[in-house]
């Protein structure tokens, strides 16, 4: 199969990861708390560190899983069975995104246990230096792991199918795509929007975000079924 198809699958997995909302929400909280407490420059550095933390986890997870797959399974996994399991997990994730990801009501509260969500909120509001911001970025990526792990596996397997040059491009592209919403938020806030406007947009377009995420999972499942199994 050509490298380009695999790159497309990896990018689609990255786009699906970008549709997850926890990192975005934590960054909004960090921005809101930081703009009130620190200078603009410091807020920018904190946001940058947060985004780098989030992207680094995506990069490392995909790289690590690719390494594990290539050493334990010697680059090949039993394609039909394992990929069918992945397809099943992706389809289940699409149902989770549809029904359970967002809690009900005019808010963007997520599926997380309330105590953990409050902990992340508290950390976001109490972030005062770049190390904390970086750690918060990594924490928010880890917190999404129950949903994003399948995406990492898909991306890792796709990367293993490519030649060396494309592997590096795909890995970096995945990490960048996964933090694209955070970068867009940073640009929007820089160009004059405030966090309340962004949050109002999220609440009023909650259904769109939900559907986009759900259909991304379904599309990814269908794509890997078509290209890797059939």
């Amino acid at each position: 199969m050509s490298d380009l198809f695999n790159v497309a699958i990896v990018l689609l997995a990255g786009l699906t990861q970008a549709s997850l909302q926890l990192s975005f929400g934590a960054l909004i909280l960090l921005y809101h708390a930081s703009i009130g407490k620190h200078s603009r420059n410091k807020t920018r550095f904190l946001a940058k560190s947060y985004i780098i933390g989030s992207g680094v986890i995506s990069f490392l997870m995909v790289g690590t899983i690719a390494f594990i797959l290539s050493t334990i399974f010697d680059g090949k996994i039993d394609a039909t069975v394992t990929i069918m399991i992945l397809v099943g997990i992706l389809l289940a994730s699409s149902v989770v995104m549809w029904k359970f990801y967002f809690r009900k009501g005019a808010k963007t509260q997520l599926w997380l246990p309330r105590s953990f969500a409050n902990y992340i909120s508290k950390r976001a509001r109490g972030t005062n230096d770049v190390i904390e911001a970086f750690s918060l970025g990594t924490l928010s990526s880890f917190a999404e792991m129950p949903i994003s792990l399948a995406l990492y596996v898909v991306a890792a397997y796709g990367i293993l199918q490519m030649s060396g040059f494309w592997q590096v491009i795909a890995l970096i592209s995945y990490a960048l795509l996964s933090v694209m919403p955070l970068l867009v938020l940073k640009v929007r806030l820089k160009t004059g929007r405030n966090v309340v406007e962004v949050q109002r947009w999220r609440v009023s377009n909650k259904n769109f975000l939900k559907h986009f995420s759900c259909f991304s999972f379904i599309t990814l499942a269908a794509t890997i079924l078509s290209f890797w199994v059939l």
Partner: protein
Amino acid sequence: MEEVFDYNYSRSDIKKEIIRSGAGLGLPSGWLEQIAEITTKAVDDWIADKATVTEDDIRRRIVMELEPLNADIAYAFDNYDKII
């Protein structure tokens, strides 16, 4: 009736929180001070004849008092725990 405040209620803490919320939206500090002062005074007046109030009651009252002054701060105050 004598004013009785729950031991957790702190006018200055609420004022600080309103100012912090507004500062997070990039609003000028002098204006925020005024908004916070007006809001906390209104909340104090509201509490004065209540035997017991909960934290949620106070929060709702603050949002109600903030809404006509600045809708964005009221929104931020109301939704601080509804983002993730």
